[in-house]
């Protein structure tokens, strides 16, 4: 349970326990992917995005797209904790007829900006939202969270080149660089490294951070707040798949595996959520 005054580390630990519980109860996979980006979501939703849970559709809101839709439970837990929707929606996650599915449907719940799940769509959509902000002279910012495996998709790089050509300073990409994709090391499947250099070559301002260090994430995001930016910003966040639970960390079996009751209890204990 999150209490007011909890620091970001504590909030992230609570949300990690939450998504492990969701996976256990709904018997849904992709737990490792949710845990790797949890700190990035907490940094965005508690310390960066200008959003109002009471007025989720406000036209001036900052936009956030979770392009790696398979980490949806992490987003759902985040949005629920930030007050976008009531607890019962989260409790029904993954059940027949529930609003929240394994990967989000359009308009499934307040705060879910886009239905993702097929990789390589979110960045283009985010570019469109950012350009619309420019055309309509709104000052909102657009943030898109990609997975490293997702960077296999050519459409990601189409969008990257186009955003740079458009000098889209209101657009920020976070890459959850956990070094794994579904069935292998991301370095071995595609020549992803040097990933930061790729974004540099594509014309993006870029930073490399420890994706589990809130001070480093915050420092990179500060750059996105500078006015009159004329380059989109890429933050390459080095993360650990399954982060926060010793027996899940960097073990790609947790891309698909579902925790049993003992594993759930052990994970909650490690996270300080008995």
């Amino acid at each position, binding site marked *: 349970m999150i209490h007011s005054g909890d620091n970001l580390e504590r909030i992230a630990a609570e949300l990690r326990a939450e998504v492990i519980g969701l996976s256990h109860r709904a018997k849904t996979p992709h737990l490792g992917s949710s845990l790797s980006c949890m700190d990035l979501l907490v940094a965005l939703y508690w310390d960066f995005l200008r959003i109002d849970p009471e007025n989720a559709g406000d036209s001036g809101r900052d936009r956030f797209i979770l392009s790696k839709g398979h980490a949806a439970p992490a987003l759902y837990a985040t949005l629920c904790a930030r007050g976008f929707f009531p607890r019962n929606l989260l409790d029904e996650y993954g059940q027949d007829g529930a609003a929240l599915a394994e990967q989000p449907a*359009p308009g499934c719940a307040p705060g879910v900006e*886009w239905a993702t799940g097929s990789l390589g*769509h979110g960045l*283009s*959509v985010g570019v*469109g*939202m950012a*350009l619309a902000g420019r055309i309509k002279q709104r000052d909102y910012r657009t943030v898109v969270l990609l997975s490293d495996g997702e960077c296999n998709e050519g459409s990601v790089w189409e969008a990257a080149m*186009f955003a740079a050509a458009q000098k889209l300073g209101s657009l920020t990409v976070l890459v959850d660089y956990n070094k794994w994709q579904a069935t292998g090391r991301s370095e071995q499947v595609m020549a992803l490294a040097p990933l930061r250099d790729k974004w540099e070559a594509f014309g993006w301002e870029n930073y490399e951070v420890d994706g589990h260090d809130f001070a480093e994430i915050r420092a990179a995001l500060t750059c996105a707040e500078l006015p009159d930016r004329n380059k989109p910003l890429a933050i390459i966040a080095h993360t650990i798949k399954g982060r926060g639970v010793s027996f899940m960390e960097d073990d790609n079996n947790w891309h698909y595996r579902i925790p049993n009751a003992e594993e759930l209890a052990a994970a909650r204990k490690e996270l300080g959520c008995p």
Partner: protein
Amino acid sequence: MRNAFADEITTIAQEREDIVLLSGDIGNRLFDKFKEVAPGRFFNCGVAEANMIGVAAGMAASGLRPVCYTIASFLTYRVIEQIRLDLGYHHQRVILVGTGAGLSYASLGSTHHSVEDMGMLRLIPGLAVLAPGDEKELRPAFHAALDYPGPVYIRIGKKGEPVVHETEPKFAIGKALRLREGKEVWILALGNTLPLAMEAAGQLDNEGISCGVASMGSLKPLDTKLLGDVFTSAKVVATIEEHSVLGGLGTAVAEWLAANVTAAKAELVSFGTPDEFLHATTHQSSARAWAGLTAENITDRIAKSV
């Protein structure tokens, strides 16, 4: 037809600040006037069609009305998943204008033919598929697309097609346009085959066979009322399209006929491209001849059925 499109969208963009035009690096100089009247609302998205569709979806979700324009084959085949998910699943009001559709770019080879596009897009729930018969039909069709509460694909030819409509018709999505009435035969023409349908109908009339013609500018939704009328009144109903006999107008009408076969009395004859790639070097007229899309072949086959 493409010049009429450029002219129409330029006019509308002067009145509506939400109109945005995205091009896949084609239409050199075609949109100079648009860029002048709507600065900041023209985007050359480069040779990157998947991104163009996603960008348009994001714009539509933010209150703009984007129109994507490029060669029909690149606008559809390459990016079918972006169309299905970002436009269809999200029900975003984006208009896709595919130019040089069908066999318009026959001489450029099968890479540039789009004779399976409608078959693919017709399967996407909530997406309207339009194919106006000439430039006079295109203009009101574009307005109807702007009013449609979902994504729309408009399939147009290139330039210099014959104009059939004498005046601008009253176009409505889901309604065919009757150009001439007939008793024994009805030819249902899709898109740029409308002039061919009119020619064939004239020849049949000369042979004493009364032939009506309708422009099926709205393939989806289909004008089922018209189908009900012509299949219960005529002996032969023919469909003509620069599209495969699989998946397009002929198939859509056959699907309707299968469900309404007891009431129908007319025979269905479909004209379109065969289920094979065209490998030969051709121009549009010779490609049409290869597919049997000539007035002579159409009238012969219809006359035999009557």
